[in-house]
């Protein structure tokens, strides 16, 4: 697709009918949680969009975010989003490698200076630039260099948005988020571990259609992160009635009652999982019977046990801290060894692992 042609012109040239385009706009509006009345506005705006250059940088990450976007279940979305943008650099997806790949990035930066969209997944090592490099360039240097000419930055995944798992205690690389380093560009955070694929593509479409989206206090687009998992959860009526599962196999769990007491972070987690869902819209963790881990919130990995209810103090952590303070590191190591031994013994004897066991390991 030529960068001079509008999306509408290109689609017509390719034989994509107006009905198909309207369908794309309708499903996109739905995905962006926009009222259906916005469908004609999206159609009118997107049709006139010229193909923007996108440079995608991957730093300290697991490639889960890229896996997520390439598995966007809507064929219309994934086809059209890649028709709509010019993905000029993505070192996992592009065919070119080595100096040819870096040349493509530099060329895109030069040709589209001030206008390209920079997408980042992964956090950036802050302690020692040598922890993560691409083509001999440190992550920090590459980020600052590419960010300088970007129109806007989309930080995809909890690592880019908040530091994520690389930043989890003890944060061995001194990992920081994109917004910790870049202060002079608009940044849209799209957290999640990984983010919902439709949310990633939806943010790009929203940016192309309406410009920078409305953001919450953590820099997340309100259209997708405006409501808590808890508020949109189909199990919410059980919470309101005080009906909870107390273990993963009790009567409450079998009846699909609220998972709050099993540590569900839905009340403090803002994301679109409960509505957009995962795996072709099949379900989301709570529908599969597991509490929400809160992966789209900052420092979710260090926010206490995944299996402790939000209002219950993290007793195990407190006790461990007291023991460690009293008996020093040897006691801590002994506790760890004891837990490992218990786990191995449980595996050997096929013992049932309880929530308390999981708590002590986390």
């Amino acid at each position, binding site marked *: 697709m030529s960068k001079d042609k509008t999306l509408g012109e290109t689609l017509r040239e390719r034989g994509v*009918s107006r009905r198909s385009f*309207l369908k794309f706009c309708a499903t996109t509006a739905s995905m962006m949680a926009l009222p259906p009345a916005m469908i004609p506005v999206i159609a009118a705006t997107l049709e006139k969009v010229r193909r923007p250059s996108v440079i995608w940088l991957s730093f300290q990450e697991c490639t889960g975010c890229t896996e997520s976007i390439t598995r966007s279940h809507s064929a219309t979305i994934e086809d059209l989003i890649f028709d709509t943008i010019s993905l000029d650099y993505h070192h996992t997806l592009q065919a070119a490698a080595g100096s040819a790949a870096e040349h493509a990035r530099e060329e895109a930066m030069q040709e589209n200076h001030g206008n390209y969209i920079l997408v980042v997944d992964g956090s950036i090592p802050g302690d020692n630039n040598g922890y993560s490099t691409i083509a001999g360039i440190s992550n920090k240097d590459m980020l600052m260099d590419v960010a300088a000419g970007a129109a806007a930055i989309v930080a995809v995944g909890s690592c880019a948005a908040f530091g994520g798992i690389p930043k989890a205690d003890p944060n061995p690389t001194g990992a920081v988020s994109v917004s910790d380093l870049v202060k002079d560009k608009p940044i849209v955070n799209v957290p999640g571990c990984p983010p919902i694929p439709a949310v990633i593509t939806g943010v790009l479409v929203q940016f192309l259609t309406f410009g920078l989206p409305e953001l919450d206090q953590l820099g997340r687009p309100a259209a997708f992160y405006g409501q808590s998992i808890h508020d*949109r959860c*189909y199990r919410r*009526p059980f919470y309101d009635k005080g009906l909870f599962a107390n273990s993963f196999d009790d009567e409450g769990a079998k009846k699909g009652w609220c998972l709050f007491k099993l540590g569900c972070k839905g009340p403090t987690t803002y994301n679109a999982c409960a*509505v957009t869902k995962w795996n072709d*819209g099949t379900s989301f963790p709570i529908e599969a019977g597991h509490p929400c881990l809160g992966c789209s919130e900052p420092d979710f990995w260090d926010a206490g046990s995944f299996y402790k209810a939000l209002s219950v103090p993290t007793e195990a952590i407190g006790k461990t801290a007291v023991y460690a303070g009293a008996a020093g590191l040897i006691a801590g190591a002994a506790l760890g060894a004891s837990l490992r031994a218990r786990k191995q013994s449980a595996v050997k004897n096929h013992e049932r692992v309880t929530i308390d066991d999981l708590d002590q390991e986390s």
Partner: protein
Amino acid sequence: MTADGMPATDFAASSPCAPPTGNLIPLLHEIRHALTRWLEQREEHVIDLRSIPLAPGEEDRLLEQLGAGEVQARLSVLGPSDIIETRYPGVWLTTHYNEDENIIGRFIEVCEVPGILKSQLEDSRAGLGRLENDLSNAETTA
């Protein structure tokens, strides 16, 4: 069955594993209000079913209640789309699928006919061009 032969739906009933959200009855009232506005003011209304939390099984019960009326159309537009006029004329159910036939969007539309079902001017213009081209070719060969 109800007195008029329509299937009766027990909205209070819930499946053994899914708690009802209580959203079904309000949703049907929203459709009722929208249909009233359509009849009185010709105001169209669209409800995005993905925007409403529904427990597993609740959407099926909603679709069962809406039923199927006189018009059922299948479009082939970047994957299929089904457009059904429900048993309440003027209330349409539009379901969009991707090419793997997974549902990617579902809307209830209260209108004369959903916009996507109508012939589109842009497509008609392109069609006219093709027809003129075909005729020109045919006359050249003749």
